């Protein structure tokens, strides 16, 4: 008997039993009004988290001790791998990834059950039962379709090792964030479903869902950004977002979650959009489950997909059940989902947020269609096709510009509407800045209509937010006599959500400008040169000095071949780069590019080696990517803004006193 495998499998099965117990105890608690049963149900969810933590620890031990009697360990790890990559290999294959996914979900659910459920006694049994059902569905797959504790039919001397593309520090952070982000959508979903089950769909569930939704938005956003950064620095194609089916699956749940974070404010303040908010949280979770189905089924070919397996149909059924159950619940409670207030004006912030959520959902529908269309083409037209970046650029690009325009207008337009005179006054300065910036960009040589429209809209977003900060800080300065920096900092203490949110918008604007410039004005050069020869890439001269090989003797790497390149601009040497190629002992047919980047705030010089011959004449590709660094800076601003908005709210006394009766504290 393999003790470790037996303990691990037992932990998973016991966790499944605990999840099922949580459902049963919650139903009993509801019917018998038993506080003890309710308490036991909550404890059962905590037990699921504890048991899966144990399972993760056991698998971690198996990986670190090279226990190749476990099939998963033999498939993804090897003796030579560093401990950090052994840990990372835990979530690299189908079973390990599913264990990590379910574990992360259990941790979120445990935190939810511990922190939030006691505060929502009116839907506590429903919430715990839903949490148990969601966890149970994934635990069932883990126990019966893809167990990481399955024993190898024979004991190999060594494991195969991590897939070469995954042997990178990015593997230590990107998948954990992305998987956690995807599963985090289950908490707002659970709360929304519980509110529907309990028949209480007023603002109460929204207030508790807000923090979880913001956390989900943060983790999912960071996961996607890290994915872009990893693709850029590892994959060696000069870009960071390829509209790959699995990339699409990762961003799909983020779209309704962003929409929800905006429209929930309308429900909080005005008691409107109850139905829409529920649709958004349910859609976010359904899309997250669709994403895991997409990755795990092998349905759509992608650089990220796991091998095709029998788990696919199970997840397809799960996606279907999620959608049908969600729609059923909404239809059941439809009479209770009427708005408590009316729209006073179409020129109001409510309308702006609602219309922007429409744009988000349209983008989600378009991306979903593009992701699945190759499957339909093969199924009904017997033709394999690829829906590549040009489709998304053409279709999603204009929608993103519309989103930016609405973001700018939404910040300026007040709640409930404003007189046209007020609107004009508020829009005057940002519009002038946008016009001046657009003219300046055109004068500087930007001729592409898309670039001008996108950059103009992004500048509009940033300028309205900066204006809000300036006006706020000036008001505080006048009222309190504080110096400018202190007044500016005090704004965030005054209203974290509002001013943190503006920072997120500024981050989006910075990222938009970086995306536009690096996509439209990317300069690509290919050159075949012998040692000692030079070639030009943009304004730079790249001199290929020599080719050399190294054997690092770690992580299954057989050999690293690198080229030494001196980069100069005019007579000045600005950098020395070492692009290369890495081959792996167990994967001789899968060499991996070693990308070399000389970055600055203005541009990245991105170089990789395409190949070489016996005379050491080598083929290089060099990209000059303008403003890419601003993508990561914008991402950092976006994350900072979200963290500020997520911080515990210190509600100003004046706002509490002035809040319209029933608007924010309706529950």
């Amino acid at each position, binding site marked *: 008997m393999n003790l470790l495998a037996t303990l691990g499998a037992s932990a998973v099965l016991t966790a499944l039993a605990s999840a099922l117990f949580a459902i049963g105890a919650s139903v009993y608690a509801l019917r018998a009004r038993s506080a003890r049963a309710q308490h036991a149900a909550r404890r059962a969810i905590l037990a699921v988290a504890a048991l899966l933590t144990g399972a993760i620890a056991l698998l971690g031990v198996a990986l670190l001790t090279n226990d190749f009697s476990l099939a998963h360990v033999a498939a993804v790890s090897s003796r030579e791998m560093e401990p950090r990559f052994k840990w990372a290999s835990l979530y690299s294959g189908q079973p390990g990834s599913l264990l990590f996914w379910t574990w992360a979900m259990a941790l979120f659910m445990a935190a939810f059950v511990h922190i939030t459920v006691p505060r929502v006694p009116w839907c506590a049994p429903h919430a715990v039962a839903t949490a148990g059902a969601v966890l149970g569905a994934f635990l069932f797959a883990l126990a019966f379709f893809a167990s990481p504790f399955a024993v190898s039919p024979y004991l190999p001397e060594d494991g195969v090792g991590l897939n070469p593309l995954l042997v990178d520090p990015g593997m230590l952070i990107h998948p954990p964030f992305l998987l956690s982000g995807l599963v985090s959508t289950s908490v707002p979903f659970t709360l929304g479903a519980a509110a529907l089950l309990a028949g209480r769909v007023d603002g109460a569930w929204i207030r508790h869902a807000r923090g979880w939704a913001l956390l989900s938005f943060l983790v999912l956003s960071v996961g996607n950004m890290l994915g872009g950064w990893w693709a850029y620095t590892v994959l060696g194609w000069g870009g960071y977002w390829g509209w790959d089916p699995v990339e699409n699956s990762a961003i799909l749940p983020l779209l309704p979650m962003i929409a929800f974070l905006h429209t929930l404010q309308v429900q909080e303040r005005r008691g409107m959009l109850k139905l829409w908010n529920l649709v958004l949280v349910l859609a976010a979770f359904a899309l997250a489950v669709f994403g895991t189905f997409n990755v795990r089924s092998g349905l759509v070919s992608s650089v990220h997909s796991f091998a095709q397996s029998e788990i696919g149909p199970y997840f397809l059924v799960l996606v279907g059940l999620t959608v049908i159950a969600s729609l059923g619940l909404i239809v059941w409670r439809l009479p209770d989902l009427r708005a408590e207030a009316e729209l006073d004006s179409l020129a109001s912030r409510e309308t702006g947020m609602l219309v922007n959520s429409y744009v988000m959902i349209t983008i989600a529908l378009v991306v979903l269609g593009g992701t699945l269309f190759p499957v339909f083409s093969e199924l009904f037209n017997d033709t394999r096709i690829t829906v590549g970046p040009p489709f998304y650029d053409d279709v999603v690009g204009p929608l993103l510009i519309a989103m930016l325009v609405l973001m700018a207008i939404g910040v300026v337009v007040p709640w409930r509407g404003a007189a046209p005179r007020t609107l004009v006054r508020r829009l005057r300065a940002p519009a002038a800045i946008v016009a001046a910036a657009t003219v300046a960009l055109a004068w500087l040589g930007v001729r592409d209509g898309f670039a001008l429209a996108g950059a103009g809209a992004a500048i509009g977003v940033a300028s309205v937010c900066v204006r*809000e900060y300036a006006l706020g800080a000036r008001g505080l300065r006048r009222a309190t006599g504080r110096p400018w920096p202190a007044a500016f900092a005090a704004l965030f203490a005054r209203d974290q959500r509002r001013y943190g949110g503006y920072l997120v918008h500024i981050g989006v604007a910075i990222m938009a400008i970086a995306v536009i410039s690096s996509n439209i004005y990317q300069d690509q050069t290919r050159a075949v040169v012998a040692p000692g020869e030079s070639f030009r890439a943009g304004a730079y001269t790249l001199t290929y000095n020599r080719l050399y090989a190294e054997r690092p003797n770690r992580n299954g790497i057989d050999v690293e071949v690198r080229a030494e390149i001196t980069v100069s601009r005019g007579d000045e040497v600005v950098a020395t780069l070492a692009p290369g190629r890495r081959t792996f002992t167990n994967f001789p047919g899968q060499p991996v590019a070693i990308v070399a980047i000389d970055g600055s705030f203005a541009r990245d010089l991105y170089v990789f080696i395409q190949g070489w011959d016996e005379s050491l004449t080598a083929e290089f590709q060099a990209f000059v990517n303008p403003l890419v660094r601003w993508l990561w800076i914008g991402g950092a601003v976006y994350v900072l803004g979200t963290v500020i908005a997520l911080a515990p709210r210190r509600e100003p006394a004046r706002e509490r006193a002035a809040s319209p009766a029933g608007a924010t504290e309706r529950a």
Partner: protein
Amino acid sequence: MGAVRARAAIAGFVALAIVGAIAFVLFATRGGPSAPAGGDREAQALAIERQLLCPQCTNERLDVCTLAICTDMKGVIRERLEAGAPPDDIVLYFRNRYGERVLREIPREGFNLLLFGWVGGSLALVALAGGGFLYRLRRASRVRPAPAGPPSPDDRWLDAQIEREP
């Protein structure tokens, strides 16, 4: 005043929708990337490569793929360019040889038009359903007119700041 404001707002949204629709049509109907005519042969070859995908890898552009089959394909592109073949014919040659999956841009014809139908349908669905929802919310306030309501403390405070602007 309320009716004037509503009309102005509706006109604003209609204008935005028209501009958005025009922009969308312009972007959606613009042609695919075309190789520079004549001149730099290498730039022409690179532009063609960027329109194609590796037939063996998953979603990997031909220009950055290092597989032997892609090296061969790049060689064929150069040979055909040398022989004076137009870029579109070269792309067509690879399409006929490996199928539509090697095209980075999905051809806008035949069965594939369903995808663009899906895009149009999504836009129409969201516009109609969303517009209807918005109309219902708005109509409810007309049936039961509500006062414009005082601005929130935040907005009142912001308005006061703007009034003080020089």
